[in-house]
């Protein structure tokens, strides 16, 4: 049994998701990649990760619904960071209302993300 901390990453931009996966694996985390909200929920239910990273706009099920599902249906307290694009301020507010812990506005710096991930996972 590995003691690596598990992270589910839901992001429909495959290149970005690959980049972040490499980066976070380098930092010693165990990554599970979902290309849409539906896969994300499946992975979350299967692996009960220590952290969830999720884009707000995704095919099939939006990031908002993923948060809602995690907090209300699964009743998990796992920290969630959402990614949002410019002009989605309203969505970000909703994400916080639904129980997101932090957000990163796209475009963001992967280094900054790593710092925030570490902060959330160490506390």
């Amino acid at each position, binding site marked *: 049994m590995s003691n690596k901390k598990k992270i589910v990453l839901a992001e429909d931009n495959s290149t970005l998701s690959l980049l972040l996966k490499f980066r976070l694996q380098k930092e010693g985390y165990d990554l599970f990649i979902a290309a849409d909200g539906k896969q994300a929920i499946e992975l979350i239910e299967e692996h009960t990760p220590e952290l969830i990273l999720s884009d707000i706009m995704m095919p*099939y099920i939006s990031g908002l619904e993923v948060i809602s599902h995690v907090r209300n249906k699964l009743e998990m307290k796992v920290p969630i960071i959402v990614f949002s694009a*410019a*002009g989605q301020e309203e*969505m970000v507010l*909703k994400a916080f209302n639904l129980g997101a812990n932090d957000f990163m506005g796209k475009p963001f710096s992967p280094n900054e993300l790593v710092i925030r991930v570490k902060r959330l996972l160490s506390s």
Partner: protein
Amino acid sequence: MDSSTVRIILLIIHILFFIYAFSVVFSYIFLSFISAIESSQYLKRNSFVNYNEILSSTVSPSISIIAPAYNESLNIIENVRSLLSSHYVNYDVIIVNDGSKDDSLEKLIKAYDLVNVNYLINYQVPTKPLRAGVFKSTNPAFEKLIVVDKENGGKADALNCGLNISQSKYVACIDVDCLLLEDALQKMIKPFLELTDVKVIASGGVIRIANACEIKEGKLININLPNKFIEIAQILEYLRSFLLGRMAWSRLNGLLVISGAFGMFDKKIAIDVGGYDTNTVGEDMEIIVRMRRRMEEENIKYRVAYIPDPLCWTEAPDNYKILISQRNRWTRGTIEVLKKHRKIGFNPKYKLLGILSYPYWFFYERLAPIIEVIGMLYFAVLIALDNVKWDYAFAFFVSAYLFTIMFTIIAIYSEELTYHQYTKKGTGFKLLLVTLLEPFVLHPFILYAAIKGNIDYYFNKKIKWGEMTRKGLSKTES
């Protein structure tokens, strides 16, 4: 009557038929040509558009999706989910439950945590009264949803109710069982925002056939070509009509109809002209004609735009009985609309609308089935009198058939060169096979339905009115 008069009359009839046939061929070639130009320009113009930049909630205009529902209990939850997942930000979804007798409302309340709310309606267009009232969700994830429960009044009445409820600048009127792609709203709103020299009053979308496609949770996962002949034949029909016909008419700014299954309107204009007409079965065509007419009469430079991208997918009839009743209704709708707006036909005051669009619709849509039947009867008489010139008949028949085939193949080409939705191996062969057979297999049914529509319209008032009241929006009748 001596034989020379008869001969002259017959000659005139022959010449008229010939002119008609020739003009059909010519107009089809002309429209294909125009549509090719417009398609290639449309694709070029939109090849590097970043639709994400237009999503912002603060500045982009508001849109309401209005979807009337009548006894849709079976799929309503999924359908609403699909409508709620658009990537546009500043929009809401208004589901108008048009006096459904099933448990649609209860299902919606349960699935989306709805509660009855106090909602002040501005009755700008008269409609049937509300039944259970207006509902909204308590869950912020479904904040965009408004459900209205009203007494049954038919599709047009339900759409009008949605127009009254909507607070948005634009409305997208759709059939609730349609599946919209996530970027549909951005693409449809673009012409309204993009053109500076003319006023865009409406934009129409393409309807694609979803039979046999894999759909999960209101999302299109996989596009498949159906297996049944009747379904593939309708796909060909839709390709011809949407990718060749309407594309060309939009280029000429002569589009007379926007599919009722997916169209976007400037709400203010739609309300100013009085909303949808509840007295016709062709309400989708009627409102466009009326809006255009108003613009022409007020001398406003305007445009009805058209978006050829495959954004809206719907289930088409998969048996002849339902297909015939659908086409019967379309025929009656066309007759009613053309009759109601007779004034614009051949009237130069209405410019292109009066001298090109209306006549085209009148001769090649409205009269085509009638002329075809007359031709067949005439031919039958000639056979009976053993007076057929087989040399002529055979040669013309072969060339007409070949021409039909070629036109369909051009439609397939325009699909392959633009959107290429049917990517799987073997579908090309199937499409071609159906192309060859369609004139003999599907066409007779379409012709029969059109003739029946004419008969029902003129001689069967009871059916006409009977259907008015029970005219719902069941899936099969979309």
